[in-house]
């Protein structure tokens, strides 16, 4: 039986789940799952109803679409309106509201906006339409950065000059630093993202365990992975023995993926960037190095804008920082739902509000 089959075995899952339910905590423990895919998986499995008393799971800023600020979306829309370009984007971005509507609205007004599964599709599109300019909306964490970097390199190598990217790439570690230093919330341990760690490995998280005495477990995405991750975190907290453990061993290597990091490094350099809810975090984004500056859409298509307005009443910023849980937002399920989302956390398939709405909105009543 391969490792994936093993982790999906019902008997393993049920055993772990009983173990989780029988945990007894003398002190309250707060854990944060950093990654939006974890948030979804946790709610899809109904895990919030299995947590022992005194254990709290908070969702963090790990949904790339959600942390992308309004100013970015406004810039993208302004480029589309002011220049003759085709925007290409991952589907998740289509319905995120900006100051003047969503990308989907833009498309219905007749501006070309295409969804793609990979930045390479955008490069191909640029090749097919040499007369038009194709801009890829590069949103994501370390997981998507390597493929975006590779696509830019490829376009550079074969001399394509009608392709560019608008980078809102974000780095996970600087955001974790902010969360650790935030005295409005106290987190005992982090359920660390599996996919990002495939690239990063475990080393970059070490300061969290060693200097800040927080539990750290790099965790996979099957329900059994997640319960195992939570149990390992609780164990570290109870023993006060903090290390960066890897639960997701079948995929994550301690050294990460050096090749992928090398291609990111070759194409991008770190820069200060704005996060929804956090403001500007130093050195937390990726911008193109000078050598690849010609592929920077913000240079190629300069736009000027007056104001960026967050959706009225939306508390995504507070959700992303772990200050509130979605049901505490006055609009949650009262005006804001996946069919009629007000903020990005309800739009994205990895958004915390969407996860609560779809799977856990009756909590306390089941």
């Amino acid at each position: 039986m391969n490792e994936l089959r093993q982790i999906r075995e019902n008997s393993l899952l049920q055993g772990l789940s009983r173990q989780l339910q029988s945990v007894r905590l003398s002190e309250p423990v707060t854990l944060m799952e950093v990654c939006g895919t974890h948030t979804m998986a946790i709610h899809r499995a109904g895990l919030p109803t299995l947590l022992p008393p005194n254990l709290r799971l908070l969702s963090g800023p790990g949904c790339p679409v959600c942390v992308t600020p309004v100013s970015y979306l406004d810039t993208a829309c302004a480029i589309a309106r002011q220049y003759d370009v085709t925007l290409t984007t991952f589907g998740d971005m289509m319905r995120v509201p900006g100051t003047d509507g969503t990308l989907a609205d833009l498309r219905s007004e007749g501006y070309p906006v295409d969804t793609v599964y990979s930045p390479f599709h955008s490069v191909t599109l640029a090749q097919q339409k040499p007369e038009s300019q194709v801009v890829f909306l590069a949103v994501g964490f370390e997981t998507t950065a390597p493929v975006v970097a590779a696509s830019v390199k490829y376009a550079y190598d074969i001399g394509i000059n009608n392709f560019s990217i608008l980078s809102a790439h974000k780095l996970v570690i600087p955001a974790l630093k902010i969360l650790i230093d935030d005295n409005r919330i106290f987190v005992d341990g982090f359920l660390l993202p599996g996919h990002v760690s495939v690239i990063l490995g475990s080393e970059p998280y070490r300061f969290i365990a060693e200097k800040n005495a927080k539990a750290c477990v790099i965790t996979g995405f099957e329900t059994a992975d997640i319960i195992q991750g939570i149990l390992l975190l609780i164990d570290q907290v109870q023993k006060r023995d903090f290390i960066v453990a890897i639960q997701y061993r079948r995929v994550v290597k301690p050294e990460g993926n050096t090749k992928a990091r090398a291609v990111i490094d070759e194409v991008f350099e770190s820069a200060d960037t704005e996060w929804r809810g956090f403001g500007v975090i130093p050195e937390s984004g990726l911008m193109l190095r000078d050598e690849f500056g010609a592929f920077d859409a913000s240079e190629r298509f300069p736009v000027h804008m007056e104001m960026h307005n967050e959706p009225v009443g939306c508390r995504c910023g507070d959700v992303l920082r772990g200050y509130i849980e979605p049901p505490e937002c006055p609009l949650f399920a009262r005006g804001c739902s996946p069919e009629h989302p007000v903020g990005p956390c309800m739009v994205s398939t990895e958004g915390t509000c969407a996860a609560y709405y779809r799977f856990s909105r009756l909590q306390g009543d089941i």
Partner: protein
Amino acid sequence: MNNNKDRIKLAHGSGGGMMADLIQDVILRYLDAPELANLDDAAELVIPHNRIAFSTDTFVVKPIFFPGGDIGSLAVSGTVNDILMKGARPLFLSLGLVLEEGFLIHDLRTILQSIKQACDYAGVKVVTGDTKVVGKGDLDGICINTSGIGSILPGVDVSGSYAKTGDSVIVSGDIGAHGIAVMVKRNGLHLKGDIKSDAKPLTGEVLPLLERYADSIHVLRDPTRGGVAATLNEIADSSGVRIYLDESAIPVNDWVKSVCELLGFDPLYLPCEGRFLVFVDSSASVEVMSFMRDTCGCHDVSVIGTVEGESSGEVLLRTISGGVRILDMPVGELLPRIC
């Protein structure tokens, strides 16, 4: 019109001699009910009892041939099953064919053959029909409408709004096979394993059950579009109850499971065309289940949930890990039309 390469022409729909040929040589070759033979403008029917179930459905499945069936068998089982779900014995069908110019007559014959087979299997007759031909590009090959009449069995009173606290929810077999068979064929995936749609008329399963347990059965529904999840949400909503489902009791075939994992689908949202859900008094559930297994041929029948109390109508899923979460209506268009 016996050549394998013959195609439908616009003149086949014009009402002239070619149309008469198409009807006589092709269509009536497969459909031979006496009510149909004299080609009057309407069929004269004799219907037992006075409670009638009447239903209609239109079929535009793509691809039209899929593992385990085709648009013809689907068009019969779809309407037959809808009539059965009202607690009625299906008796008569109408058949409306809309054909695209250029459609292969050979394919039409294959489809008519499976219509005939499905009708024989279900014990229904096509008693009236209509054929239209539209220009090339105005339709994707073929579209079929069937309407049907059935006679509601004495003592039977079922409806999606009759679910009651304490009912057990039974599914007649493994779910999701139709959805996956169509998806696999449509995407040209080559997968090992016996991938076959579950599409079939449910007459042999449902009628004996109704005859025996009319008093205990409150709801009968076939989980077609939106799958078990959507159907149960509709029932919960119209009955004003809360339904608890037990994920570990839901029968899913291994290859359906693997394809779902591969393509990221949830079997609970996949359409079935040969399965049904029954809500029965919990006191009768064990007996009903063994009857379904032993007498009605529902080998994988399983009690998958219970109705627990009145509410605004929601479905909750106890997952395999034991956690509980909402099982919502599908959001947006998850799958292209496959039934």
